[in-house]
């Protein structure tokens, strides 16, 4: 079955530290991975997309890596702030429908002052 797994436990870190979230996938390898942020009661908001031939991608304080050998993507937030507290979702395209997204459960991040 299609499976994409994220850190099962919530992640609590102190303001200013780097948060690292993990996304592992099984079965087929995606051509792309996308990361989204979701706040309570809101829809997911797109953050970054990384292609299989890109090892790393950055946007401001965000960095995503994609290791096709390990079948893993890491999502980093540097100099974290309390406003970064949210659930972060990893997604790949569906195996049989390249346009639909197959999401993980998400990792809840709490940044404390």
């Amino acid at each position, binding site marked *: 079955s299609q499976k994409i797994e994220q850190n099962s436990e919530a992640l609590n870190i102190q303001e200013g530290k780097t948060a690292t979230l993990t996304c592992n996938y099984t079965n087929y390898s995606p*051509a*792309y991975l*996308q990361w*989204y942020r979701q706040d309570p*009661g*809101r*829809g*997911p*908001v*797109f953050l970054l*997309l990384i*292609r299989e031939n890109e090892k790393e991608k950055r946007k401001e304080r965000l960095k995503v890596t994609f290791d096709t050998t390990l079948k893993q993507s890491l999502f980093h937030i540097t100099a974290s702030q309390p406003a970064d507290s949210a659930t972060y*979702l990893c*997604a*790949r*395209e*569906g195996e*049989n*429908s*390249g*346009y*639909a*997204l*197959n*999401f*993980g*459960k*998400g990792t809840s991040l709490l940044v404390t002052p």
Partner: protein
Amino acid sequence: GAGVSQSPRYKVAKRGQDVALRCDPISGHVSLFWYQQALGQGPEFLTYFQNEAQLDKSGLPSDRFFAERPEGSVSTLKIQRTQQEDSAVYLCASSLAGGGKSNQPQHFGDGTRLSIL
């Protein structure tokens, strides 16, 4: 509007009733998606439209679920004879272009929270 708009934001219905959920995508977006999100889970794909054509409905849980996008813009997700297990947040998303791989961001609405009593 600037983003994807969904209505109603909250819907409470009794088991057995029919419900209709509306999605207004970003103007000009060709692709439209419906997802279902249970509490503590990621969104699960339901169905996909490219303009008015429903190209994929493989994620619809049963034949009680029906979606349409007759003019290629607004979409409605209808659930007939609702059951308690239909309780979830229903998210709509749109993206600019159609077809191909999911190499584009999807823009999500804030969803409709459906509660079946």
